[in-house]
């Protein structure tokens, strides 16, 4: 086992992420075919110290005022440029470090007892959950969908829609059901998880509502990280960035394919490319330019918004209603830009693009699959933003409607 690199500037971490792109790109077809991110990729990410960006210093991590969620997501976008599934799993792992850092101190100590490089995931969509209460905590049975990164996760957060939170459990306590057969993001192993009559101590429960306590959430006060003061509605970026990165990967691949169709294995060059002697068509160049601009704009908007929201979190300043709605709109619109980009490119791949191994097609599939996540629905978000922009009252989630982060509870 190699030593984990522990230097910690944003530039160093991003450089290391960029250095991983070629090997992730080389394994991307294998990831798709096996529906699994290989352990070599996971090891490379850990050895580069990238998993530690969101781990508090107290537990051996790098997180601090200079290394907040924005850097982790820049890394995620970079890794997804090499392999969408790997970037998606990385995002899940680093985002869940933040959830751990927002959980009880007893859970944090247990989770990071053996070091900072621990992988975890959440199941956000239960097929069913049965909860009962004991004198020490909970007894839970259920089945959940979408456990991204499940094949490498050591801990799982079983979500409870009723209790607005979830229970941290160890891998040995869950059964993984192989259900993930999908259009794209095939390597994320976003399988089902099943537990039966599992007794869970109270300290392992984490609640969304703890983020709404007036003094700020526990993680913010314990670790001083602005990322841990972000509200759940602000975290759509964690779902978005791998999609944007995968779209950038498709731009990279299309540039290579259009310039030199024979450089990418597959059926004969596309008809739109014209005879090899004539080189790429004007249409391909224009499509590439527009797709590239769309991806760059998507990347720019999430970075800009996230840094602004981190500033609000640091200072505790309120965020106006319209700005909240804009941020949500931008999260979802960035995914829409990524979709438009891969649509535009895929249409120009011709016959070579129908092969599963074609990297532009993979980008197309990964972006569309990632964009189907429940936090990125364009129609609903667009309607909500239009409503707010018109100055109309009483629409949408509490955070937009009332300008507060505390949900209304009960009936």
């Amino acid at each position: 086992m190699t030593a984990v690199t522990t230097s910690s500037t944003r530039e160093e971490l991003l450089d290391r992420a960029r250095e991983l792109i070629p090997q992730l790109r080389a394994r991307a077809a294998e990831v798709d075919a096996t529906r699994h991110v290989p352990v070599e990729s996971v090891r490379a990410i850990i050895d580069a110290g990238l998993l530690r960006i969101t781990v508090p210093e107290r537990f051996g991590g790098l997180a601090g005022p200079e290394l907040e969620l924005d850097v982790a997501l820049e890394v995620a976008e970079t890794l997804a440029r090499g392999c969408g599934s790997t970037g998606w799993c990385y995002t899940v792992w680093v985002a869940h470090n933040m959830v751990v850092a927002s959980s009880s101190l007893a859970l944090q100590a247990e989770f990071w007892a053996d070091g900072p490089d621990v992988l975890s995931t959440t199941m956000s969509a239960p097929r069913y959950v049965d909860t009962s209460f004991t004198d020490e905590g909970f007894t839970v049975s259920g089945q959940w969908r979408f456990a991204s990164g499940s094949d490498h996760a050591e801990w799982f957060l079983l979500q409870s829609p009723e209790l607005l939170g979830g229970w941290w459990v160890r891998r040995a306590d869950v059964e993984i059901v192989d259900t993930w057969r999908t259009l794209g993001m095939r390597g994320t192993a976003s399988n089902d998880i099943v537990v039966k009559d599992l007794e869970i101590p109270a300290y392992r429960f984490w609640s969304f509502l703890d983020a709404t306590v007036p003094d700020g959430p526990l993680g913010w006060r314990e670790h001083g990280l602005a990322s841990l003061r972000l509200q759940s509605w602000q975290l759509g970026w964690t779902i978005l960035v791998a999609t944007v990165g995968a779209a950038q990967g498709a731009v990279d691949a299309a540039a290579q394919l259009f310039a030199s169709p024979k450089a990418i294995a597959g059926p004969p060059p596309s008809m739109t490319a014209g005879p090899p002697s004539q080189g790429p068509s004007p249409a391909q160049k224009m499509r590439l330019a527009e797709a590239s601009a769309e991806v760059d704009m998507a990347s720019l908007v999430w970075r800009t918004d996230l840094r602004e929201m981190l500033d609000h979190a640091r200072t505790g300043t309120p965020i106006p209603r319209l700005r909240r709605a804009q941020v949500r709109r931008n999260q979802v619109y960035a995914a829409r830009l990524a979709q438009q980009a891969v649509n535009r490119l895929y249409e120009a791949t011709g016959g070579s693009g129908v092969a599963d191994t074609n990297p532009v097609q993979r980008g197309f599939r990964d972006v569309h699959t990632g964009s189907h996540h429940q936090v990125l629905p364009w129609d609903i978000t667009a309607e909500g933003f239009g409503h707010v922009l018109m100055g109309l009252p009483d629409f949408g989630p509490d955070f937009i409607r009332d300008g507060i982060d505390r949900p209304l509870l009960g009936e």
Partner: protein
Amino acid sequence: MTMTIELPTEIRDTLQRSGAEGRPIVVSFRGSDGREHPSYRGSTHVHGPGQLALWVRNPAGGLPRAVAEDGALTIVYRNQETGEYYHMRGLARLDSDPAVCEGVYNDSPPHEQAADPERRGVAMIIDVVRLAGIRPDGPVLLEPATA
């Protein structure tokens, strides 16, 4: 006769602060399907030494319908910072007496009151009959004294 328990002052204070502190209490009933149906009830507060109360905004909702048939409830409070976890069992009843309703409504957190400004809801009173769990200084078990 209901065998209630008297909640210690510090636990009453903790429960009373729960709504304002953003750590609302969970109230759960067992439905006809045999399953627990837990949900946060942000208006839950201390009503007496051995009683809790909450304002039910929707008198036709699942909880009041269940209580009308069987008042047995589970009530849970947790605080991940202090490690406190209180698992209570209670017997609940709806109370439409105007004076009781006014008191329960007025004792609910302001943001909960604001959600029902026309006071269309109804008061629910819960006699606590058992409390077990974890205090900051260790386990706790409170049950009615038996003669």
